[in-house]
């Protein structure tokens, strides 16, 4: 399996487009996408992986728990 590249992975089928994650993200890197899931919702998406600080606020706030958050390992000097 390839190395996990994105810090935030959203299960699009679980998302209900409530936008709570978008509103809570302290660095504003989430938005509602133009995709559409089988329930007719536009799932949220991460649009700036670089700027995400892996704080997990979006995951905690998501009422669907549709979000998984990854953190880069600290690089050894």
């Amino acid at each position, binding site marked *: 399996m390839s190395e996990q*590249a994105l*810090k935030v992975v959203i299960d699009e089928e679980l998302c209900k487009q409530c936008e709570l994650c978008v509103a809570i993200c302290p660095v504003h890197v989430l938005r509602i996408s133009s995709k559409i899931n089988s329930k007719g919702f536009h799932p949220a998406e991460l649009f700036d992986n670089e700027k995400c600080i892996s704080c997990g606020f979006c995951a*905690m706030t998501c*009422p669907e728990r549709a979000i998984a958050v990854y953190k880069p390992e600290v690089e050894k000097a």
Partner: protein
Amino acid sequence: MKIVYERPKTLEKVVNHYCPGCHHGILHALIAEVLDEMKLADKTVGVAPVGCAVMAYNYLDIDWIEAPHGRAVAIATGIKLAHPDVLVFTYQGDGDAASIGLAETLYGAIRGVNVTTFMYNNAIYGMTGGQMAPTTLLGMKTTTSPYGRDPKREGYPVKMAETIALQDGTAFAARSALFNPRAITETKNHIKHAFELQMKGEGFTFIEVVGTCPTNWGMTPVEASEFAKNEMVKTYPLGIKKDVKGSETR
């Protein structure tokens, strides 16, 4: 990269029936997370209410029983008598726990029943379409208070966490919320503490959780979270109201 936040194991991987942005889902996830961390899911029985959380039994992978409207604490009392070693909690709405079920809830505290009650307070009867509840804020418009709740006509909002805290059988009573990560973390700490007290047999533990009902409040989920943070907490101040083990852990 390593995973830092993922879906709790005890939270079934199904799409729940709650409206988009409803905080019921956040509270479910927190309970699941604490049961995972305490490794208690296999010895837990939940009691589901009548209200929007009526199908909570579909969402947490534990044993459940469904109570008639308001009767959750009475049923929990029976389960605990038969199985004193099992972790027992009730998951109820404000209408369920503070209106039709007020006697059961209050007597859980008075009798010091060793179970945990979650009361999700969205100040409304959500499931039935947004009628006024005893918890409805003064001035709040609902389908049965279309001009806003007037205390001269409909009385005052009931303060459950404070009322439960007054009873000698209560080990822990607190009010917390879910409108931002800080409030969510606080709620999670309360859940863990309440479960620990129950496992030690300390008595009735009660967590009132200020939630939302975007649908019947007529707000977007983001507006509803803001309303909970800015308005609900004025009538329902957050914090620990009673803790028998106060100084130890907090």
